[in-house]
């Protein structure tokens, strides 16, 4: 990200110099910095509303309820994980927290799931199919309501900030299905090599 950002800045300044537009850069930079702060502060109200509501959802046990509902599907997606293994519980909570958009709760569950899956790993240090799948699912967005984007749209003065919710859910679902399909197909194409023989000393 650092290289990309620096590259963008250098590109802009080089381009402006070549075009004789250097004079436009200073006001543009200052104006943009100010606009960023206005927008960030405009987010605060919607984010407070949303995070408050999601805390209520958490305390009402909605994450657990959702995790229970997702269990049959996730057992099928992770057949190599024993259903009663602690890794399964962490995977369920991770997915449920993601669906509710509770990023702060989803990450610790996901990290725990990865560590518990590692205890089932015949080749520690090399990702198992289950670990790769869990990562792929987490890199596809599962959240139902994209609260931060909604907040940005409201702060930017959209007439209908919520009109993107339905389309976002469809696009997210496509991404999630693609993540699972890609992980499953790639796992079959290049299977995990068998465990190395135990070193007898």
């Amino acid at each position, binding site marked *: 990200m650092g290289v990309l950002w620096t590259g963008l800045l250098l590109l802009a300044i080089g381009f402006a110099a070549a075009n004789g537009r250097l004079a436009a850069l200073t006001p543009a930079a200052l104006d*943009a910095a100010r606009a960023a702060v206005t927008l960030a502060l405009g987010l605060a109200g919607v984010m407070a509303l949303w*995070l408050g509501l999601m805390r209520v959802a958490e305390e009402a046990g909605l994450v657990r309820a959702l995790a229970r509902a997702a269990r049959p599907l996730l057992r099928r997606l992770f057949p190599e994980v024993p259903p009663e293994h602690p890794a399964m519980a962490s995977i369920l909570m991770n997915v449920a927290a993601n669906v509710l958009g509770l990023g702060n709760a989803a990450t610790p569950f996901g990290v725990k799931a990865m560590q518990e899956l590692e205890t089932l790993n015949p080749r520690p240090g090399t990702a198992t199919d289950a670990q790769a799948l869990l990562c792929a699912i987490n890199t596809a967005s599962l959240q139902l309501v994209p609260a931060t984007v909604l907040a940005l749209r409201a702060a930017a003065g959209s007439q209908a900030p919520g009109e993107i919710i339905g389309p976002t859910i469809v696009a997210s679902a496509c991404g999630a299905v693609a993540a699972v399909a890609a992980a499953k197909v790639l796992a079959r194409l290049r299977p995990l090599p068998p465990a190395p023989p135990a070193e007898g000393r």
Partner: protein
Amino acid sequence: MLRAALDALSVAAVPVLLAGVPLVAVLRRVKVYPAFLDGAKQGFETAVRILPALVAIFVALALLRASGALDAAAGALSPVLEPLGIPASVLPMILVRPLSGGGALGVVGDVLRSEGADSYAGRLVSVMAGSTETTFYVLAVYMGAAGIARYRHALPAALIADLVGFTAAIIVVQLMF
């Protein structure tokens, strides 16, 4: 048909959650109001936390625009981008999204500001940001936590998911609006 269903979903999602979540919580004897206030406190923190990234991205994109580089890139790439339905202003999204969550929000904010929240570009960039994740960050955190050095197919699978998510965003936004 799909359009009507998605419109209904967009309209109903927030009101249903706003009414339903507190109702379920009250029925389960949760102290709803203190819980709400406790969570809402983080709203301001969130705004402050993403502020630095918004400034960084806004300034970079404003400079690119003021220098004429964004227009030049748009002109050069338009034969490729236009048939794909990608406005040039949305291009930075595809570059930044997998790398930085705050950066992606910065791109969303920049497009909403420069093209309008209810423009095609504004809607597309919103759906793209909402339907994908910060792939490299997630992989680094999750794999790192388990001490895994060899990711095997996790990265290609995740990038395929991003690509499908972006493509689906373009198709759905064109169908819907």
